[in-house]
């Protein structure tokens, strides 16, 4: 974990509401593990003071990038920043994905819209290539398919309106796949909470291990404020754990969805 002022190298629109931001961060970049995130202080935000968390998307030498969707004041202000502008980052943060061991399970990745960002490094660093299931509301929500294919992964696309790939929810082809073969597979997922809950259910139904990257509103990002907690099972009880510190990636079996309500 390092706090640094870093320079924006690129900040371009990817598609529709999605942008790709590349930062020169020579001290941070080498430390980043798949599934970790960066906490950005977006300048020019005036009365909105808090940092915003974003999964690290790609890492190359002295730079790292994030893939973000403009959903509100912070991400919109971020989209207006230009190459040459500086940002304060705290990164890398959180406990990321377990990178598969050589000869271990075949990874099945499940992503909803910008959830793809959190999974890219995992796909790149996994010795086994597997399948990426990516879903979105419409074709504009389907990101970086070609980049995952370039890594040698099989990418299966679903959209809720049928405008690209298979028609329906991302969990449909996933269920078909684990029904065909569950043994020797492991799920890794990042996306909206209802999608994660569905992936968790599929994992337990088919007895497949799964790691989920949870998207909880954050405040400090480093474990002090206790804003970002989710209920985690401990034996026959449960306790709140911090998404920013013990997470964002959790073993699906430990999440107490019933408590979350």
């Amino acid at each position, binding site marked *: *974990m390092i706090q640094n002022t870093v320079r924006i190298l690129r900040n371009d629109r990817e598609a529709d509401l999605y942008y790709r931001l590349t930062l020169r961060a020579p001290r941070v970049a080498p430390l980043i593990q798949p599934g970790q995130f960066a906490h950005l202080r977006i300048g020019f935000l005036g009365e*909105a*003071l808090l940092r915003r968390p974003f999964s690290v998307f790609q890492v190359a030498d002295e730079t790292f990038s994030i893939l973000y969707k403009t959903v509100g004041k912070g991400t919109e202000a971020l989209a207006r920043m230009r190459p040459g502008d500086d940002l304060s980052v705290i990164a890398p943060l959180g406990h990321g994905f377990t990178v598969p061991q050589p000869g271990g399970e075949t990874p099945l990745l499940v992503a909803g819209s910008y959830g793809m960002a959190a999974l890219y490094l995992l796909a790149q660093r996994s010795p086994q290539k597997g399948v990426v299931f990516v879903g979105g509301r419409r074709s504009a929500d389907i990101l970086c398919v070609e980049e995952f294919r370039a890594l040698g992964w099989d990418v299966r696309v679903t959209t809720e309106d049928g405008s690209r790939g298979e028609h329906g929810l991302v969990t449909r082809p996933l269920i078909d796949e684990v029904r065909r073969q569950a043994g020797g597979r492991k799920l890794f997922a990042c996306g909206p909470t209802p999608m994660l809950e569905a992936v968790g259910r599929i994992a337990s139904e088919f007895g497949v291990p799964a790691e989920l990257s949870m998207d*909880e509103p954050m*405040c400090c990002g*480093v474990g*002090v404020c*206790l*804003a970002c*907690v989710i209920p985690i099972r401990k034996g026959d009880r449960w306790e709140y754990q911090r998404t920013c510190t013990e997470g964002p990636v959790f073993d699906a079996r430990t999440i107490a969805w019933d408590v979350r309500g």
Partner: protein
Amino acid sequence: MNLSVQIGRLTLRNPVTVASGTFGYGVEYARLLDLNRLGALAVKGIRLDPVRGNPTPRTAEVASGMLNAIGLQGPGVDGFIERYWPFLAGLEVPTIINIWGTTVEEYAEVARRFDALGGVGALELNVSCPNIKEGGAQFGTDPRLLHQVVAACRKATSLPLITKLSPNVVNIAPYAKAAEEAGCDALSITNSFPAMAIDIETRRPRLANGTGGLSGPCIKPIAIKLVWDAAKAVRIPIIGMGGIQSAADAIEFMMAGATAVAVGTANFYEPQTALQVIDGLGDFMRRHGIEEVREIVGSVRIEKRS
């Protein structure tokens, strides 16, 4: 130049501390800044037993501030001593342990436990948490109860005792006096303000708890006034807090009557804030030829028009 100040028999190397609940147990920020430069470090509120805390969402960002209703999640006295005390005890910076209870006896028991621990810098009695039904807030809004709880803790420990007053009162002076008379060594002013925000699309409160405590720069002018009012009423030192994000903010609190200050919410967005305040305070003193930081305390000039 001398930046040191006294809180009871505790000497702080400088008047800049970090506020309870905004700095965890110190260890979380150890990799981002040199904790030993702080005047003191206040840890998240602790009661006797572990506390699970409130459901989520627990925070909501608002204009120039935030709401929180964490519900005083914590490991309890034993969990704290086991997990966090070894690290804190190894620091040069004094630890202020923020404590609470649901009864006078529980406050006193927690105070006794930390008295017996040895090496604690000071105890801060939170009688003002707005976020749980029995978060001690009833002690903070009834001067007699306040007197009782402070007096009971005074009996239970010889550690420097700080009372963190509730801002949720019409006039803070009687509360400040009650705490002083009951034997506490200093006051912390202020805790967050009871507040609420609503998501108009869902018509639901933005916090699962319904209401929460407002903190951050938006409360600063109100907090300054509370410090000013309390400073006129008591002789014991005041630790001023509420929205501090720069040395200028800290100096304002000191001029209103605070002997020391605490950085709270600002830690979340700029973990270096407390160190920046220490540096900026030194610069201000140099610029104004001030030798003793104590000279700033209560130095606001109030000119009466005739």
